[in-house]
């Protein structure tokens, strides 16, 4: 069993899926794509199970190891992220299957053709992005990270552009952001290489000395990656890009794509940069994170469009992710990093559920202006329920993944005496409650006697997919033991990590 090349399979299986979808006739795109998604998820989860059972896995592509060849490395942290991608990926795929389905009954042949092309493009690009996301999580060298990161970014831009119309300017802006972000990252890679002569993640860390060069490398990489993760004040591009994309794409972007850059930052912090260099930058990131929590929540409260509200909520939640860079190095053990990682996966499920639900509601209502959604709750009960389940996690209320990560955050912050972080985490939860319940109140409001919105029928898959992700977000709170144990596999946040990987 241990000889199975599962790590590389997690990358080439979705890649192969993308290829098959592209080569096959267009009318089979959805079926091929869905098949590819299911197999990809199965391979991903198989890899995760292997890591959980028998420890971290390493694979050298083509028999070449570091520093010259490409080396893949999956420990508990990577595995958890791959599991997140598999679960969210397969549910969103189900949703997309119904969402992009071409209405064969309509007369307008030209329109049908457009829809069919859009559907085919979605599946090609999405499977490509899936392969690249897994690629980031499995990469053990800085350059490979760059390549996969670039593919994720470009694919994400293409997915946003699928919506056409007002999404196009948003996609354009997103394109510039993602390109400049990865270029800044690449600049940092070059600087690190110039000092140590190695690109292997763990060896680079050993050879990098604290100094001006390391500082410069860190700063450019942090700016680039923070831009791509939409940390305040670099978040300007996110709300339109996430809100105007098609609903399944919004879910993928908020759930997975921004976690990719977060993941790379954590890796840089733990294994590459010396604490003397990274600690002050971490404090800055934490402060920006605190501001993001408050500012993003406030903006979310002010939105009139449902998907905009959910998108601004992402800006706020990204803030929590960045708290760990200030917090985690200060506390003993890995509790701080665990809080961040657990927050990342629970946000993925929660936000995924909320975007999917928002998409279903918007499709039924015909638009996503909240003012005109009064009283639709009874007919769209499942969607609003899914939205609520995701919302519970954002608020950090039990039983949910958000509750567990909030608990871990406050534990770390209290252990290091960080009162401000405790207050911000608590306040952020209350603000999240404010904007989530604003939406739920719409559902509970009694329908006006006349002028009630006329709803279009929507496929029930849309509602059920959202509900499944919402249920997972809640389940993460009830069964936190296993994911947290997986997170310790290979000690990703401990000292022995570097020892474990260098041959």
């Amino acid at each position, binding site marked *: 069993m241990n000889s199975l090349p599962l790590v590389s399979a997690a990358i080439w299986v979705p890649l192969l899926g993308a290829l098959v979808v592209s080569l096959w006739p267009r009318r089979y795109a959805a079926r091929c794509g869905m098949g590819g998604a299911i197999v990809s998820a199965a391979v991903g989860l198989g890899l995760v199970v292997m890591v959980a059972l028998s420890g971290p896995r390493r694979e050298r592509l083509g028999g070449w190891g570091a520093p010259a060849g490409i080396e893949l490395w999956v420990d508990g942290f990577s595995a958890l992220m791959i599991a997140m991608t598999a679960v969210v990926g397969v549910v969103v795929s189900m949703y997309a299957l119904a969402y992009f389905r071409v209405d064969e009954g309509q007369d307008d042949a030209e329109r049908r053709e457009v829809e069919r092309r859009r559907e085919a493009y979605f599946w090609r690009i999405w499977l490509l992005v899936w392969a690249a996301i897994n690629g980031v999580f499995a990469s053990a060298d800085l350059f490979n990270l760059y390549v996969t990161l670039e593919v994720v970014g470009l694919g994400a831009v293409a997915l946003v552009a699928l919506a056409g119309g007002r999404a196009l300017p948003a996609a354009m802006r997103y394109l510039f952001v993602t390109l400049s972000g990865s270029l800044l990252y690449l600049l940092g890679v070059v600087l690190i290489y110039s000092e140590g002569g190695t690109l292997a993640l763990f060896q680079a860390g050993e050879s990098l000395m604290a100094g001006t060069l390391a500082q410069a490398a860190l700063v450019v990489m942090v700016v680039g990656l923070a831009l791509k993760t939409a940390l305040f004040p670099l978040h300007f591009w996110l709300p339109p890009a996430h809100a105007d994309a098609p609903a399944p794409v919004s879910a993928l972007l908020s759930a997975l794509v921004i976690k990719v850059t977060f993941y790379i930052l954590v890796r840089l912090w733990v294994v590459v940069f010396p604490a003397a260099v990274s600690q002050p930058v971490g404090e800055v990131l934490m402060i920006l994170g605190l501001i993001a929590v408050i500012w993003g929540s406030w903006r979310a409260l002010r939105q009139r469009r449902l998907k905009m509200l959910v998108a601004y909520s992402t800006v706020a939640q990204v803030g929590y992710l960045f708290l760990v860079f200030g917090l985690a190095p200060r506390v003993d053990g890995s509790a701080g990093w665990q809080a961040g990682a657990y927050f990342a996966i629970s946000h993925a499920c929660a936000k995924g559920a909320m975007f999917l639900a928002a998409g279903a509601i918007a499709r039924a209502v015909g638009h996503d202006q909240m003012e005109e959604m009064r009283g639709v709750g009874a007919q769209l009960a499942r969607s609003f329920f899914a939205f609520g389940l995701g919302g519970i996690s954002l608020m950090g*209320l039990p039983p949910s993944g958000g509750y567990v990560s909030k608990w871990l955050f*406050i534990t770390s912050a*209290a252990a290091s005496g960080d009162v401000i972080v405790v207050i911000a985490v608590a306040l952020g939860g209350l603000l999240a409650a404010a904007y989530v319940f604003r939406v739920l109140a719409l559902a509970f409001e009694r329908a006006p006697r006349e002028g009630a919105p006329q709803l279009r029928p929507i496929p029930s898959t849309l509602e059920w997919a959202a509900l499944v992700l919402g249920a997972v977000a809640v389940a993460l709170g009830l069964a936190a033991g296993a994911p947290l144990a997986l997170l310790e596999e290979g000690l990703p946040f401990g000292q022995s990590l570097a020892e474990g990987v260098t041959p």
Partner: protein
Amino acid sequence: MSVLFWLPLAVVLSSLVPGLAIFLLREDQIVTRTTLNLLGALTKLALIAAMVLGVYQGQVYETRFPLMPGFDLVLHASALPMLFVVLSAVLWLITTIYAIGYLERSPGRSRFFGFFSVCVSATTGIALSGNLFTFVLFYELLTLATYPLVVHRGTREALRAGKIYLAYTLTGGTALMVAVVWMHTVVGPFDFTEGGALSAHYEEHRQALMVLFWVMVASLGVKAALVPLHGWLPVAMVAPAPVSALLHAVAVVKAGAYGIVRLVYDVYGITFVRDLGLGTGLAFWASITILYASMRALSQDKIKRMLAYSTVSQVAYIILGVGLGGPLASVGGIVHLVHQGVMKITLFFCAGNLAETLGIHRISQTRGVARRMPWTMAAFTIAALGMIGVPPLAGFISKWTLGTGAMASGSPWALAVLAVSSALNAAYFLPVVFRAYFQEPLRPWPREGDAGRLETHLSLLVPPVITAILVIVMGLAASSPASPLSWVELIVTRIYPGPETGVGGL
């Protein structure tokens, strides 16, 4: 892992599972829904009956499994939890019967009964919590499950009430969670222990623990409606009558009061609380709440609003008894948890009947109503007299025990509080009774429903009659071994170990 291991969890699930199933039902599946509701409630009662017998004989039931490293979900059935569990389970059954009649024709019933059941599960979870971690979990879940009930009617007013309710309770819950995490970082994880988990072992953290105590009391005090944290309760009276009954008597307010009881007895321990001088402050805060809320109740015209202020005042009796310290006062406070619940639920049922049958919402409209609704008003009168503390009703037992407890613990000032508040109770309850019986009816009533031969629907009439009878029985048979009072004495002998216990001689 025997069956006994799972018993406390089964008690929680016995209302959660039917609740989740009810969400999936269509509006018109009335029979299925009613069957599920009653099946859940009866299963719960049966399970609890088995546990009560066991606990009486000294058996301990505990479900425990790790939820996060270092944090176990613990459901623990000892004497004090069982008191609250029995109260909520019995009143849940009665309230369900009432709610089935009350909501017969209104929309959104599946949603209503679904959340109703989740609400009771959360309450049971709170009751059985074996540590603070588990307590917070169910405490927050209760907030979530009650919100849809408060806004059930979907009117602007109801949504506003829901907003205020959330603003108060979520803030309180967040503060509680932060305080609990903080306490864990100070002393490490621990379970509730009869006699106090912290006690004097943590002298070195004295300062921090004192601060944490007040933060926790304040957070719990939001749900327990301690003045000035009570603002949500009078507003939330826009909820349907069965919800008010649940909020005031079974679930929300009680959860807060019960939390404070556990904090004092099972976390800090009564001796540690006394050493730190926290009890007097608690009793003082409770007294202010009792007097202030009684005054406010006096000036209300809306019946449910008056009842809401009365709850604020009456629940503080529980806190008063806990704060005064000493076994007798403790008995008085804890037994009031049950007595107040049964009396208040009767009053809300009756208020609901007046509103449903005759459209009466205000005290000024109750003239002569006893002629039209004799059973309802009889039940109302019994419960009101109980609240005032007229012997031999349930309320008298609590007040008497509290009074003697106050003397025993050397706080005679508390007697004055009790006396003044009883006078105020009489001043706001008796006019209603007087109007109903001795004034000419104000016909026509604002709205006359069609109820057939009876004064109102059977399922609306039976619940208050039963609970009113309970008010009498709990008073008359207070000394019988099966009464709440005897059970509370059992609890208190376990809280106060050694010769200090002298509660048998009532």
